[in-house]
């Protein structure tokens, strides 16, 4: 689904990413970890077409992002949800309006906006607070709203950059549980984090980065666990 081949990115001549290559299959859950400055955020930004790589190729759903025109980038992004460390919610809009904006952007009709925004808020357990504005919510709640916004257009891929960086451990756990649930329903999830404890607990594929390079890719471990869990979900379904 996503293939990166020898991606290199420089900032003012200093390499932030060096020949990063890996691929992510549909429905995979991948952690990208590493210390600060390892290049995790840059990698996610490049995947989201917010930054351009200086060298290498990226194929997302069969599309080479280097060949995308700037006018077609928004359409690619509509298939990808992004969750930020600082939530990036609009403080003057209610929780519901924040979600609705993501639907308005794609031109959804009024009735559908009402229905889907409510459904996704219910999914993340924020339906009871949909008329509040973000400053009246806790960090964990704000991040759940941000996840809801990223999911409302049913993206094929969910990218999250340090999603628990500003949260207490319990709220962080809740957010990761949400990601796991989303992934089990088929959405590909890529999370950049340096929260080692959670990463170890989740037992998923871990791509470790250091100084802009991939130093380790625990692909097999992650794949095995995902298959076990997905099989369990299927057998539970009536």
């Amino acid at each position, binding site marked *: 689904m996503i293939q990166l081949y020898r991606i290199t990115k420089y900032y003012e001549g200093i390499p932030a990413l060096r020949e990063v290559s890996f691929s992510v299959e549909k429905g995979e859950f991948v952690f990208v970890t590493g210390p600060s400055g390892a290049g995790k955020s840059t990698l996610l930004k490049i995947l*989201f077409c*917010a930054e351009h790589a200086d060298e290498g190729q990226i194929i997302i759903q069969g599309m080479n992002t280097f060949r995308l025109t700037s*006018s077609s980038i*928004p*359409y690619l*992004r*509509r298939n990808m949800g*992004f969750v930020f460390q600082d939530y*990036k919610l*609009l403080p003057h809009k209610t929780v519901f309006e924040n979600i609705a*904006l*993501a639907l*308005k*952007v*794609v*031109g959804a*009709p*009024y009735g559908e906006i009402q229905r889907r925004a409510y459904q996704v808020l219910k999914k993340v357990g924020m339906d009871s607070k949909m008329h509040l504005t973000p400053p009246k919510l806790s960090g964990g709640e704000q991040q759940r709203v941000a996840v809801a*916004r990223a999911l409302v*257009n049913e993206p094929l891929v969910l990218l999250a950059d340090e999603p628990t960086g500003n949260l207490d451990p319990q709220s962080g756990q809740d957010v990761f549980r949400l990601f796991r649930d989303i992934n089990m329903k088929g959405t590909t999830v890529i999370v950049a984090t340096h929260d080692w404890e959670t990463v170890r607990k989740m037992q998923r594929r871990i791509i470790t980065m250091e100084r802009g390079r991939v130093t380790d890719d625990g692909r097999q471990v992650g794949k095995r666990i995902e298959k076990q869990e997905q099989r369990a979900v299927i057998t539970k379904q009536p």
Partner: protein
Amino acid sequence: MKGYGLIYFISEAFRGLRANSLVNLLAVGTISMAMLIVGFFLLAFINLQSAVGRAGDRLEISVYLKEGLSLQEKDYLLLRLKAEPGVKKVTYLPKAEALAVLKSELKGQEALIQGLGENPLPDSYEVNIERRFAEADRIEGLAKKFSGFPGVEDVSYGKEGARLLTSVFKLITYGGMALACLLGVSVVFIISNSVRLALYSRGQEIELMQWIGATRGFIQGPFLIEGIMLAMLGSALAIGVLAAVFYALPQDVVLFLSSPNGLDFLPVSVVAYMTLGGGLLGLIGAQVSVGKFLE
């Protein structure tokens, strides 16, 4: 863009106008000042144009006939004069009538023509010119042509008057156009600055919209509408002020300034063009800022 999108654009534009109300009020005030000047010049232009037109209607070429022309020769000349493009009306003025006219014009100074004895004035044709031909060079061309016709002794017209009318008209037209351009640029500049402030105050929102897949059109729509609304509001305010001042003018001032028909306010079509033109300038100003910001 779907219908829902347009409603979203307009509601967001109103929200933007409210959010930066002080800046926007200043912008509307400044735009209305600029548009007031444009409106004043348009008012002056339209009234002067009609005055010049009326003066143009009074412009005549007198074609003096040679002594002793037969009736047939006079009729032939009349036909030729009437056939000329730009000629509206031709009137025959016999010499006796011309003398009577002269006498009436010299009322109180009849002594000047007492000693003339025989009527020295020739028969003539008075040629009225169409309004579109009431321009110094064209009248001169016509007069020159008439003087070459058989049976014509001499030709005269208000040369100085025609020249003056033409130059006044040109001055108003080109001066007004130059001023309108200058003020138009300043309106674009004002709107562009006002929209730029709105863009910076909503930078976070714009960035977020880009991240969640908003197209450029979706992001810039509300700002373009905001620019159009600001400029149209400013134009409407200017027209309102101009109308209030115009209709509040004492009637004796109006009569003093005006021709027999009185001063005219801007026609509805000009008011509509001014408002729509203001909107277009607003759109250009907003586009300049949004284009730069989104780059």
